[in-house]
């Protein structure tokens, strides 16, 4: 229980919570205390000496940013004695600050102007020592002019403290003090990740975003359309264009922080090559068409295929990029309108094994605890997640836990990912041997009596089966399989088991295996054995990839689930949906993404509708996918760009981007958040849900909604976990499902007191080898992943020049020893082949990759990694094994090239 304190500032009586600083309490009450080096979310620094105040019975003038409120404190802020000192400080700052306010990008939005205006500064009595502009223009997104810098340290502190990057620091001493990258080199050559946190926090625009040439005339609060972190963003607009992007400091997921994509990567919205009109392919060439023509054609084709070959000859790929409302409408159109459950989306390729595994173990396939709770975990076990690159905002909480709260961080990842810099222990299992590692850890926990017996007794079932399964899984057994020394496995087990609040974070490194479901089940076993579920800052936390992949799953864009994870094959549930949707529904589960592609290849699927997905890059074994999409009788693609998939379509329909529509996204925290229209749609582009409704109506199943708000109301009526949601309830802040009714406050973390399925279930998960291991013909193990600077198939990020400049196609990471043996140098173009295809890539020689393993991101169509990957799938979740396949590197075709390195 927090204690309320009463105190006064300049005679005004105020209240504060224990621990509040005088500055924070004043800010909350709307009282201005001049300050420059303070910024929310960063530790108080006390450097600028402007927030000084007088306090009765306290000597001197303490800084209000670092002085905590005490009961009865009498503070003097706007008084002559204090302002006289502040004025001197301000004059010193101004003495070497260029007074070019009118032509400065910070004009009217400058904290130094605020201070000077408040203090009534007329000029500086000091000799002026203004520097000439000292400009670093090397970063593609922002510019730095050190002559304007007031050395408040906000940029360096946000870079070190908040983002854990540490690209810049204050160098030198006295008048020579300056913000510098190592060696005073250009910031581009530093470890800067261009997150722009420093740009956002700079009080005087010594750092400014290059694209922000004009201030916005309107601002819209919405949710970022890139990843599952679900950051709140504020889009500043002017003349129908996005001219400024800021993190929303009130948003619980990101508290104002953004990554390079969210802050600087939104050029795609107004890209000149956006689709603006429907296109129909005639004689192999796309011709512009009217909406009437296009919609009629799509409806005709779908109905004629259904009438001739049955509804199950149709399939739809919904989109984790689209809103909840659009996903709901999509699956309703397929299920109720067309009569098939052949609906799936790319979650099949990322977290299908999570949904399958966690549902079996816990009863719910979602992240148990929100991202921000990592901050207060005692031990975080990160495995198969390159968090700083794939979930940059989640990584902030993990780094904070380590740096500020002294948490233990265990990273189990074959690659030396950035997060390992903070790790207490980094263990490098061979890709595809995760189950062996986790089983050995559980073995240690059980044999050494480190488990939580009360939890196992009271809240779980099936422990004996687990115990039998791991009985022989000693660390010594696991060592030759995983490549991790046995004592390190013991250490990891002990560290995790010793934590009061142990949290597991994982991502595609765990799920994208033929043993994906087993990997997830093994992690669930690990958490349950130690009682780390159902409390704050614990849990098993799958970091979801796409902005709305959680929502697309929640809303039933899955072949076996209606909205709210209700079973398609349960007759009573089907009856309820038949009543709600007023039509008979198919009683059998539909096909998954991977099965749909195969069925398209074999002719079983004749009509395919793809909304906002690009299987031509995202799916494994692309040569096979390409053939299937070419073979299918009718392909309709609804997207914002002419993607590799759209190129193969018969009809292409132009849709709206996230900045052009209303609706909701559900982030990885299960938090349902608002998406709002900021700019108009280009040309004749339309909302995805509106297009779908028109087609459904033309196929004989009338669908019409006045707005996405109405769709969410319908969702609430059929999906209990969304039962209490509506646009007005989430207007200012999102809610975390389950939220069953209008009065329910949402659920911060799952499984408190009881698992969703009653008792948590242990599963025996014996170790199995990957589908394709390296051999003499294909001696390297290829594992795939992502880079910070690109999003998935680059449909969006390739439209931002700076992102392309920082991360051009197509790197392949290889260990220095392997490179030396193969005679490969950094920057060489090399040929990479698997049993399925051959591509060319640019060698990045780095020990981030372990020996024997090469790494590629799947973003690039030039040298597409998925031409190499194998389409072997997990038997339960049908997720492909993107993380392990065997390749060989051909040095024969090597051409030396260094300019692209």
């Amino acid at each position, binding site marked *: 229980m927090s204690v309320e304190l009463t105190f006064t500032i300049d005679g005004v009586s105020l209240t504060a919570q224990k621990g509040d600083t005088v500055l924070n309490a004043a800010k909350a009450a709307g009282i201005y205390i001049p300050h420059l080096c303070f910024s929310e979310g960063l530790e108080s620094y006390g450097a600028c000496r402007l927030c000084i105040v007088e306090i009765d019975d306290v000597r001197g003038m303490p800084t209000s940013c670092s002085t905590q409120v005490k009961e009865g404190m009498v503070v003097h802020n706007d008084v002559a004695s204090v302002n006289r000192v502040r004025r001197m400080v301000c004059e010193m700052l101004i003495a070497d600050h260029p007074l070019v306010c009118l032509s400065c990008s910070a004009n009217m939005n400058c904290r130094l102007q605020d201070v000077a205006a408040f203090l009534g500064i007329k000029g500086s009595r000091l000799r002026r020592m203004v520097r000439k502009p000292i400009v670093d223009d090397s970063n593609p997104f922002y510019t730095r002019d050190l002559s304007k810098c007031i050395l408040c340290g906000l940029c360096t502190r946000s870079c070190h403290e908040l983002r854990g*990057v540490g690209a810049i*620091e204050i160098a030198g001493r006295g008048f020579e003090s300056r913000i510098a990258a*190592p060696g005073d080199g250009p910031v581009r050559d530093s470890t800067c990740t261009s997150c722009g946190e420093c740009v956002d926090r700079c009080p005087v625009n010594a750092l400014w975003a290059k694209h922000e040439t004009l201030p916005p005339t309107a601002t819209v609060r919405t949710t970022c359309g890139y990843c599952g972190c679900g950051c709140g963003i504020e889009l500043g607009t002017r003349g129908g264009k996005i001219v400024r992007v800021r993190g929303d400091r009130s948003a619980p997921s990101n508290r104002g922080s953004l990554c390079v994509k969210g802050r600087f990567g939104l050029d795609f919205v107004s890209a000149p090559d956006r689709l603006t009109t429907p296109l129909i392919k005639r004689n192999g060439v796309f011709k512009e068409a009217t909406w009437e023509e296009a919609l009629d054609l799509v409806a005709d084709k779908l109905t004629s295929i259904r009438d001739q070959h049955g509804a199950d000859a149709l399939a739809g790929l919904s989109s984790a990029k689209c809103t909840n409302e659009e996903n709901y409408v999509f699956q309703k159109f397929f299920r109720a309108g067309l009569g098939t459950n052949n609906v799936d989306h790319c979650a099949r390729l990322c977290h299908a094994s999570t949904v399958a595994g966690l549902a079996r173990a816990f009863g719910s396939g979602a992240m148990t605890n929100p991202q921000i709770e990592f901050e207060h975990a005692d031990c975080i076990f990160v495995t198969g997640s390159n968090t700083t690159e794939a979930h940059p905002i989640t990584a902030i909480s993990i780094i904070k836990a380590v740096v500020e709260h002294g948490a233990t961080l265990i990273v189990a990842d074959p690659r030396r990912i950035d997060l390992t810099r903070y790790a207490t222990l980094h263990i490098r299992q061979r890709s595809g041997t995760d189950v062996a590692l986790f089983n050995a850890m559980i073995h240690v926990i059980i044999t050494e009596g480190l488990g939580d017996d009360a939890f196992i007794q009271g809240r779980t079932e099936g422990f004996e089966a687990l115990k039998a399964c791991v009985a022989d899984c000693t660390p010594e057994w696991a060592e030759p399989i995983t490549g991790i020394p046995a004592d390190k496995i013991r250490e990891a087990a002990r560290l995790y088991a010793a934590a009061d609040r142990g949290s597991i974070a994982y991502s595609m490194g765990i799920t994208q295996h033929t043993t994906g479901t087993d990997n997830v089940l093994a992690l669930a076993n690990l958490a349950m054995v130690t009682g780390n579920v159902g409390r704050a800052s614990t849990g098993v936390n799958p970091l979801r990839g796409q902005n709305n992949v959680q929502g697309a799953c929640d809303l039933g864009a899955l072949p076996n689930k209606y909205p709210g994870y209700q079973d398609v094959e349960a007759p009573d549930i089907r009856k309820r949906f038949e009543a709600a949707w007023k039509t008979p529904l198919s009683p059998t589960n539909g096909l998954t993404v991977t099965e749909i592609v195969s069925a398209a290849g074999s002719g079983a699927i004749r009509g395919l509708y793809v909304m906002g997905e690009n299987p031509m890059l995202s799916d494994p074994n692309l040569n096979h996918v390409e053939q299937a999409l070419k073979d299918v009788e009718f392909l309709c693609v609804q997207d914002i760009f002419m993607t590799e998939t759209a190129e193969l379509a018969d009809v292409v329909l132009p849709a709206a981007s996230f900045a052009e529509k209303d609706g909701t996204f559900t982030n990885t925290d299960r938090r349902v958040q608002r998406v709002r229209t900021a700019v108009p749609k280009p040309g004749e582009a339309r909302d995805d849900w509106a297009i779908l409704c028109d087609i459904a109506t033309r196929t004989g199943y009338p669908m019409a909604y006045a707005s996405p708000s109405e769709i969410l109301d319908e969702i609430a009526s059929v999906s209990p976990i969304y039962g209490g949601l509506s646009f007005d309830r989430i207007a200012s802040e999102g809610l975390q499902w389950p939220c069953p009714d209008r009065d329910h406050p949402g659920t911060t973390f799952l499984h408190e007191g009881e698992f969703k399925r009653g008792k948590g279930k242990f599963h025996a998960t014996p170790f199995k080898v990957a589908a394709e291991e390296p051999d003499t013909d294909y001696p390297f193990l290829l594992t795939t992943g992502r880079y910070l600077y690109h999003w998935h198939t680059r449909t969006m990020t390739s439209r931002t020049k700076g992102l392309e400049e920082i991360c051009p196609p197509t790197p392949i990471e290889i260990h220095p020893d392997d490179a030396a043996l193969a005679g490969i140098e950094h920057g060489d173009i090399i040929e990479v082949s698997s049993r399925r295809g051959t591509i060319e890539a640019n060698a990045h020689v780095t020990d981030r990759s372990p020996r024997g393993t090469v790494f590629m991101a799947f973003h690039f169509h030039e040298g597409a990694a998925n031409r190499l990957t194998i389409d072997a799938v997990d038997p339960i979740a049908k997720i492909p094994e993107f993380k392990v396949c065997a390749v060989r590197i051909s040095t024969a075709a090597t051409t030396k090239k260094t300019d692209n390195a």
Partner: protein
Amino acid sequence: MGRIVTLTASQTPGLDAVLARHPCEESQLIPLLQDIQDHVGYISAESMRAAATHLNIPESSVYGVVTFYSQFYLTRQGRHKVKVCQGTACHVRGAVEIIRAVTARLGIKPGETTRDFEFSVERVACFGSCALAPVMVVNEKVYGNVTPEMAIRILDELT
């Protein structure tokens, strides 16, 4: 791409041995840098990178510390380090003449190193040996009551 940091054996002879003497803790930064300077003569970019990697701290933090303290050199120094005191006592007793004589003799300005890397000259604020003013320190050896002629003789004896 940010920058992919690659760990490889250092090019500077002896650097790895110096690193190995220091525990991998942030608090070791200054002792480690001093040790590197003692062995390598200055703190090169490679040394800073190696120190940062060894202590698991950002390279920028190392650069911040190296540039803050005047004891650390970012460039290769001469075999003989000549430090001329410019403190108040030395100034009053003629330090200006000493530095003028030394720089004229070596043909470099204070803070510079001769092309043959034989001599570096720097000005120092105070050695705390004011009773001996003016003071000049060459390779850790303190010379008191220095005159311009004596300063040149000391330098000449070293060449």
